C-alpha cells in the first residue's frame, strides 16, 4: 500500500523529531477518515483515503523523520513563477516571498541571479506549493500584482533575455 502525505498548513517545525518518531506507520494507517486524527500537542494528522494531512510540518520532513519508505509526498498544488528586474533593492523579492508564506503556501527558490551593478537586473524562479488549488490561485494572483509571472514546470528555464546582465 502506498500512502500520500500532504501538508495542510505551512507552519514549520512545531513538531520535534522525537514526536515524529513516536508516530508509527501502523498508527497512521489506523486512521480511517478525516473525522479521526492523531494529536500531538497542538498538531494533528488526519487521513482521507490514501492521503494524510499534517497540520503543522512540511510533509517531506515528516516522511524523512518517520522513515516510511512506502509513503510518498505529493504537493496539493504547485506552480513555478519567475520575477526579474530590480527586485532586490526594491524589496520586491522579499515582499513576494513574505506574501507566499502569509497566504498559507510554501516556496522554494529554484534559481536566483543577482545583477552585478546597480543598473543590472536580477532574476528569481520560485516554486510555490500550496495545500489547495484555491490557495495556490490566490497566491499566484496576489504576487502577480507585484511582478511574479507563472511559468509551466516543463519550461521553467529562464529565457536568455531575462538573465541578469
Amino acid at each position, binding site marked *: 500500500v502506498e500512502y500520500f502525505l500532504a501538508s495542510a498548513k505551512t507552519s514549520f517545525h512545531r513538531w520535534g523529531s522525537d514526536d515524529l518518531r513516536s508516530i508509527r506507520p501502523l498508527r497512521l494507517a489506523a486512521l480511517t477518515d478525516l473525522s479521526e486524527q492523531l494529536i500531538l500537542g497542538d498538531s494533528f494528522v488526519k487521513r482521507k483515503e490514501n492521503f494524510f494531512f499534517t497540520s503543522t510540518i512540511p510533509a517531506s520532513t515528516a516522511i524523512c523523520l518517520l522513515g516510511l519508505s512506502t509513503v510518498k509526498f505529493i504537493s496539493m498544488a504547485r506552480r513555478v513563477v519567475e520575477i*526579474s*528586474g*530590480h527586485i532586490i*533593492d*526594491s*524589496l*520586491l523579492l*522579499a*515582499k513576494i516571498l513574505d506574501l507566499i508564506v502569509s497566504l498559507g503556501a510554501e516556496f522554494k527558490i529554484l534559481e536566483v541571479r543577482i545583477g552585478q551593478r*546597480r*543598473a543590472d*537586473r536580477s532574476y528569481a524562479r520560485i516554486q510555490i506549493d500550496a495545500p489547495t488549488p484555491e490557495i495556490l490561485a490566490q497566491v499566484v494572483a496576489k504576487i502577480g*500584482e*507585484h*511582478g511574479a*509571472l507563472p511559468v509551466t514546470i516543463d519550461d521553467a528555464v529562464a529565457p536568455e533575455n531575462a538573465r541578469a546582465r
Partner: protein
Amino acid sequence: MSRSRQSDRGRAGAQWEALRRILSLELGISLEVVDAESGLPDMVFTANAGVVWKNKFIASRFRHDVRQREAPFFEAWFRQHNFEIVHLPPEYYFEGEGDLLRCGEVWFAGYHIRSDVLAHQRAAEIIEKEILSLELTSDWFYHLDTCFCPLSDHQAIFFPAAFDSYARKVLENNIPDLIAVSTAEAERFACNAIVAGNSVVMNSECPTIRSDLQRAGFRVLETPLDEFIKAGGSAKCLVLTIG
C-alpha cells in the same frame, strides 16, 4: 484624475497662468505648452503623458479610458518635436512622470494603483538605470508624484502613509535625507511640487513643510492651486520635464 468636486474653469485658468508666470518669469524655466483638446480636461496634467529620457519619449498607457484618448495628442506633439516615441508593452499600464521620478542616480516608480510594476522593468531597460518600484496604498495618493518629491540627489519629501512598509524601507535605504509631510499638508498635495534648482513651487497653505524646506535651504514659492486639487493634481502634475 477625477474627483467628485467640480473645478471652477475661470479660477483654474487663473491659477494655471499664475503657475506659468512663476515658472517662466521668476525661475526662468523654458516652457512649451501643449494645446488643450476638447473633451479631455485632464490633459492639463501633462506629467502623466509619459517620460522623457534624452531624445526618447516613453509614452504612457493610461489605465482609464478617458485619459487613454489623450495619448495620441501627446505623442503627436513629441513626434513633431523630433523625439523618438517609445511604447511599453501594451498589456501594462504606465502613467508617465506621475509614477516615475528620479532622485540622484536612482529612479523611483509607483505602482499598484495606476501603473503596473512590470511596466517599470521595460522602462528600466530603456533608460538603463535602476528603477525601484514602490507600492502605493492610498487611492488619494494614486500617483507617486502626489506623495513623493525628490529635492536633490540625496533629499526628498514624502508622505509615509501613502506607501506600504516595503516601499518606506526602500526610500529610507536609498535617500539619506527624507522629510515627512503631515497628513493635512499631504492632502493639499504638498508633495506635488516642482523643484528647480534650489526653488520649490507648491500649492499654498502648507506652512509646516514650507518651514521645513526653508530650514533645509530651499526657496519656497507658493501659489494657490485648489481648483486642480479638486481634480486630483497640483503643481507637479501640471508639468512634464522635457529637458
